[in-house]
């Protein structure tokens, strides 16, 4: 998030320069991913993304064309992702409350609510921008679905088999939450040999470090870069069609604004920026689009200092709060942790020769001989002449420090960082999913995740690091009941890692690539699991010779995967007796190869297994509260059995990602299917975190030869091969089948008509040219699922009826498609 209202103001005053892209020839260009994505996916694009889920396919298209231009001019892009939030951002985004306020705002925004309550939210949102964005996202989704429901009911009589197109977009005027696609982007960057980094905290500070250490030549970032004292010029926007870019020259801006750098930072802190998102008084009362202009006017005409202004607030509590926010914002700017080229994360303290705001302040403070503070400021002033003092409580305005090793894994994208944030902040927030997560089954899932996932993860991650974290209370805060937080158990005896660390897969095959298929093969090839995979000794101590440690990436990933499955009760382990054997669930999973399930579906099926194992909702069961089906009343009434089939099929098809060409999706939506997708998505996210925790615990303990890999090898051989990283598929394929079958039922079982309907409704001519092939491929997936379900039923893991029903459903769909 940039400095509020500054960007438009800069353009208004014509202070944005422009150059042909050619000027960047041969340069290394640091790109702030957050800023960049928000430029690509403007509010007009991907407006239905939140209604279907998944990765915005058009993003890839824009990215590809931009990269082509970079290549043309031999520009090396370096993409830097945003890392954790600093204290101000955490507070402001309502992270600590599990985004409960935003979720609550949705309820208030619904038609029946009273104006009085909404005014309080308006006050709230006036105070905060990140949360306002989040809130706006939630509200827009909610409104989109409400609108869609209304549309459905008004068209109830006329709707038979022609799906209704939604009228209301599910996203507009909001910044897209790019965090959700970070792993997909990272995967894309790895595949295309593009340099990327995940910053420990603020991406643009990291970019500033990279530039000043000569790794990049220019920054493409938000207006916040203007607050950096050591960045003179940066690129604000790229106009690739014109082959131009827009840049900002700081010296010029300050000259035109007639204010100093310190004054500019003061204004930025008051109007709200990335590091201090709240608009401070007296600026809150002005329209958001003008705050910067007004603040600047105040400074230029009356020499207003907004920091001093905060003291004049007659409400003492507010005054204290705002002064605090201001101080945190400025301090975060001054002492921002960055990943340095030494591989360590250290504070990036501004260059010492800059005579800045703080120092001059102290000079004044002394000359005015302030009684009590005079003592404190004297030594620090002396220090400032040599180097800016680093205060002892950086953790108060940034966050607590984690070991550099953790940040390194984060910088690779090996971990998403959510768990790390939970450790440093003490809060694991659960925010509402795409459709709000109001179903009992989803909330059950959230509750169950504590025992099955979070406790173990926290334990795995806090065990190797400072003892402080091992006793630090960390809680899971749910958006639906923020006050009723669940305290996570980070201390178990013996620790999870102690239970795991003798489970070792060691092949020493450096070249072997990890996949679930090869893992299953490996396990199945073993005659004695206990003998082969339970090591007599632990291998993490430094005394263990290097060759006994894990050397191959495959071994690291497989070991972690085995431990991960054990954590999910897919295996039973008895270290004493050296027995390792799969549980019922595990044995079904190990049979995937036998059942000739396509390897590309392994991950999806494993997610399905875990979901079924969690047992919050059976496949044929309706959610509570129930959501309206996308099928017409006519269908539901005339073909009840087939409708049930369709329900089953669509649910499982949410695990199937249709091959789409990049396009902005505009087509039918289906809430019921999306709700089910939310469930699977949640399971997948947790599995991902669990796997991350297991692999990080293994790495930090020293089981793997970490020196053997360079950065690129880490990315290619490990990060890229980790499972569960990519976004859960969208609901497009599920909906295609749904409407195909509905049309098929109503239209005298004519397949051609039904396919034509799909082709027009989904505009597949541009997004999915090979529609038939996608249908047959997804049907294959359904058949594989059916086999797995049958196997599960035979192990009494699910009800036999469910498996039978699904088998029939697959048969029905096969007939429809084959006809």
């Amino acid at each position, binding site marked *: 998030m940039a400095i509020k209202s500054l960007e438009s103001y800069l353009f208004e005053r014509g202070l944005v320069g422009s150059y*042909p892209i050619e000027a960047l020839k041969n340069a290394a260009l640091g790109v702030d991913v957050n800023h960049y994505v928000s430029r690509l996916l403007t509010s007009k694009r991907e407006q239905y993304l939140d209604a279907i889920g998944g990765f915005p396919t058009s993003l890839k298209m824009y990215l590809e064309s931009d990269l082509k231009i970079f290549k043309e001019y031999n520009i090396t892009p370096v993409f830097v992702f945003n890392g954790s939030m600093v204290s101000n951002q955490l507070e402001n985004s309502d992270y600590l409350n599990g985004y409960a306020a935003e979720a609550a705002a949705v309820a208030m925004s619904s038609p029946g609510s009273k104006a009085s309550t909404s005014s309080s939210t308006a006050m709230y949102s006036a105070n905060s921008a990140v949360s306002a964005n989040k809130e706006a996202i939630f509200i827009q989704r909610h409104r989109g679905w409400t609108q869609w429901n209304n549309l459905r009911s008004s068209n109830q009589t006329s709707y038979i088999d022609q799906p209704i197109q939604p009228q209301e977009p599910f996203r507009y005027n909001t910044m897209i939450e790019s965090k959700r696609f970070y792993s997909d982007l990272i995967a894309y960057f790895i595949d295309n040999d593009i340099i990327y980094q995940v910053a420990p905290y603020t991406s643009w500070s990291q970019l500033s470090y990279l530039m000043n250490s000569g790794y990049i030549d220019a920054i493409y970032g938000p207006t916040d870069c203007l607050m950096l004292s050591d960045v003179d010029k940066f690129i604000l926007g790229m106009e690739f069609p014109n082959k131009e870019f827009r*840049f900002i020259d700081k010296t010029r801006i300050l000259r035109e604004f007639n204010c100093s750098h310190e004054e500019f930072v003061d204004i930025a802190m008051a109007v709200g920026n990335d590091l201090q998102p709240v608009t401070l008084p007296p600026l809150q009362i002005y329209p958001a689009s003008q705050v910067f202009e007004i603040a600047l006017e105040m400074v230029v005409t009356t*020499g207003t200092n907004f920091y001093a*202004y905060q003291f004049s607030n007659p409400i003492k509590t507010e005054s204290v709060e705002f002064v605090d926010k201001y101080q945190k914002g400025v301090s975060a700017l001054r002492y921002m942790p960055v990943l340095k080229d*030494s*591989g360590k994360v250290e504070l990036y303290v501004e260059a010492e020769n800059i005579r800045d705001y703080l120092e001059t302040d102290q000079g004044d403070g002394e000359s005015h001989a302030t009684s009590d503070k005079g003592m*404190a400021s004297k030594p620090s002033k002396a220090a400032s002449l040599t180097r800016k003092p680093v205060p002892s409580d950086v953790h108060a305005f940034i966050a607590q420090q984690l070991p550099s090793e953790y940040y390194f894994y984060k910088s690779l994208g090996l971990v998403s960082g959510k768990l790390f944030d939970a450790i440093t902040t003490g809060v694991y927030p659960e925010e509402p999913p795409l459709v709000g997560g109001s179903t009992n089954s989803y909330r059950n899932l959230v509750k169950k995740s504590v025992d099955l996932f979070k406790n173990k993860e926290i334990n795995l991650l806090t065990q190797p690091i400072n*003892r402080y974290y091992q006793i630090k209370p960390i809680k899971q805060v749910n958006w639906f009941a923020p006050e009723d937080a669940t305290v996570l158990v980070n201390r178990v005896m013996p620790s999870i890692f102690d239970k795991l660390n003798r489970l070792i897969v060691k092949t020493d095959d450096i070249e072997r690539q990890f996949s679930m298929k090869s893992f299953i093969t490996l396990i199945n090839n073993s005659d004695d699991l206990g003998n082969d995979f339970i090591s007599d000794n632990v291998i993490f101590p430094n005394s263990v010779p290097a060759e006994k440690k894990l050397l191959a990436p495959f071994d690291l990933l497989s070991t972690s995967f085995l431990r991960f499955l054990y954590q999910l009760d897919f295996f039973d382990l008895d270290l004493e007796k050296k027995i390792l054997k799969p549980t019922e669930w595990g044995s079904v999973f190990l049979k995937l190869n036998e059942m000739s399930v396509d390897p590309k579906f392994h991950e999806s099926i494993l997610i399905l297994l875990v979901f079924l194992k969690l047992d919050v909702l059976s496949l044929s069961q309706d959610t509570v509260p129930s959501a309206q089906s996308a099928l017409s009343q006519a269908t539901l009434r005339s073909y009840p059995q087939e409708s049930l089939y369709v329900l089953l099929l669509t649910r499982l098809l949410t695990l199937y990602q249709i091959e789409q060409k990049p396009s902005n999706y505009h087509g039918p939506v289906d809430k019921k299917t999306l709700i089910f997708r939310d469930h699977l998505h949640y399971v997948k996210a947790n599995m991902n975190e669990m796997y991350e925790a297991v692999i990080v615990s293994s790495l930090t303990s020293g089981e793997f030869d970490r020196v053997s890999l360079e950065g690129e090898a880490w990315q290619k051989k490990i990060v890229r091969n980790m499972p569960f990283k990519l976004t859960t598929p969208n609901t497009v394929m599920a909906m295609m089948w749904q409407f195909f079958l509905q049309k098929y039922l109503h239209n005298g079982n004519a397949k051609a008509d039904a396919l034509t309907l799909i082709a027009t409704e989904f505009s597949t001519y541009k997004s999915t040219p090979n529609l038939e092939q996608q249908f047959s491929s997804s049907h294959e997936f359904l058949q594989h699922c059916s086999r797995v379900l049958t196997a599960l039923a035979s192990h009494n893991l699910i009800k036999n009826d469910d498996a039978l029903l699904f088998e029939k459903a697959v048969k029905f769909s096969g007939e429809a498609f084959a006809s």
Partner: protein
Amino acid sequence: MKGNFNSRRKDHGNSANGSSTGGSGNNNQFAGSSGFHESAETTRNFNDRLDYLLAKSIGSEVVATVTSAVKYSGVLVACNLESNNGLDIVLKYPQIVDGGFADNIEELSEQLGDTLLINGADVGELELKGIDFAAGEKSEQAKKQEIEEQTKKPIESQEGKANGGFKTDVDISRGKGEVRERELQKWTPDAADESLEIHNQTLEESSGTWDQFSVNEKKFGVKSTFDEHLYTTKINKKDPDYEKRLKEAERIAKEIESQGSAGNIHIAEDRGHIVDDSGLDEEDLYSGVDRRGNELLAALKTNAKPSPAKPSKYVAPTLRDQPHNVDPAIISSITAKSHANKQAPTATVSVKEVSVHRSATPSSKVTHVEMPTKPSTKTSQRTDVASKKHVSKEAQIEELKKFSQKFKVPYDVPEDLKGILKNSSLKSDPSLPPKPSGNTGSKPSLPGTPVGAKPDLRKNLSGAKLPSQSQTPTHSPSLGRASVSSKRRSTISFFGSKAPQPDEKKKQSFSRNFNMFIKAKQAYDEKAKNLQQQDSENKSMEPFFIEKPYFTAPTWISTVDQSYKSLFPDERSAIQRAQINLQHRQMNSINAAATAAAANQQMGVVVGNMVRFPMGPGGSPNPMMNGMAGNMGMYMPLQPQPMFYPSMPHMMSMMGGGEEGGGSPSPQALSPHMPPAYLNNAPGSPAMGAYGYPGMPFQPMAGGGANLGGGNANYRHGYHHHGGQGSHGHRRNNHDNH
């Protein structure tokens, strides 16, 4: 406060402001403001005026008051308007006029040297004395007269010199209206001259032979030698191949002569062809440029646009002033001549005229000034075949021409670019006429003269890309100006001198660095190596281990044992600091206001039609400022009120009233969300009162209470000056004018 911002952006609503302030009982002090709004144009005008004033005052005696109230008088040598910090001035031969509050005047005056530089921040007031505005006026008029006189007889006046004192040419020529011509007298040789024997002798009349060589030898002892072969190739007739070569030469000569003269009279005549020259005059035969190629273009033109075809005939220089001659090059050269005081055109100019002429196109319209087009010889060969095509093409050409006439690049071409253009792009296109330079280029620009626009256009075409808005045919508004100006930088300069070089190892460097394990290993290896070098026996270094994450504390490494909060000023010093800041800002504003006010007043005298207030005596600045505030009404009274005016309730209420009457387009500015607590300080004044720092002593800056209103208004005034300077990018530096 709102009113101010709105007014800056939009002009409407000001009259409402004005009337409401008038109505608020604050008499007519501000009522006049309704007439003015500070559009960019206005601000710029005032900036220009201040520039003008200062330019005029350079060299005259001024009195500067610095912030310590010491007054210095001296000759104003230079001033810097670019400073953000008021007006830096340089005084020559400074003297202390008034000691002000300083008690060590002796000391001060001793320290004074020949030159005194006063920082803009220190200039409290600048009094300009005895500025001769008429001087400029005179020269202006003189120029005008000059131009008028050019059509009449040139008048020479030497009388002026007799009056003593230094006189410029202008003074001299203008000084006396009547010019007495002496009667011209025929020269008759004196008696002594008769010895020269040239009496009554002209060349024709001369008798006898004249051998210059012999005379030269006789008179000066110079013996002339002459050898033809110094000047030409000697033909060796004894060469064995001579015959052969002669034949070859003859063959070539025949070949050349056998070629048609293609209607070229000169060639025909050179070759001894007989040409019917009955319809041609000498001009056509020997001097004029063959321009029949243009008949074609003219014919095409008649097709495209009905207008009488014009004879493509060379026009004698004497007739070039006639309106039918519209060749741009000629027009420009003529005007150049007329502006250059009727100096005889130099040889270079006439040469250039001819060359321009060759490619220039006569146009159909009288006032039309056209871009020279390509020589049309090529076209002529194709016309018959594809005349239809040409019609549409011609229309396009016409359009382009029109565009080129209107097109003006809204900024000056930077000096360095001019050089580049001259050297590269102009030369690269031979179809372009050579750019008339020298005295032609330096004349005041004519409307649409291609001379000025041409290189700019070229530049844009040859540059990588022309941003769309800079193509706007009209001058872009001053707001856009800034953005345009930044576009003219050349492509390299984004990175300055150190443009990035291709570096294939970037990826590697990212891969190697930022990896804590490899880096730690490297550091370890280095250390081990050092250790080995130091003491080869002692190899007891520990084996390499990666540091356990366990050792990292949850807090960050700090250098001082303090909270970040203690690095910020506490409440008191923060407010003190803010106050100093305010004073600083205010001081600058007042300084600027004072000078600006002076400028405006003086301008009022000169321009007369601009301001409606009666001209007051240019006395001390304070009454003047009051006068400005009362009469000028130039600036909006409702501006964000500086925070420290608790002693001015009437101002408050006025501001408040103004705010409400300001018709602010965004009423949510006064939204109900505003914490009511902020209103406690000044009930009744919606927003303004809310911003006071409680308990702040007000320190008057601009004189007594009676002056406060005026001071404040002027202070706003000054602000706008600053703003104008900033946003319009006026570069002012009076050093140049000196």
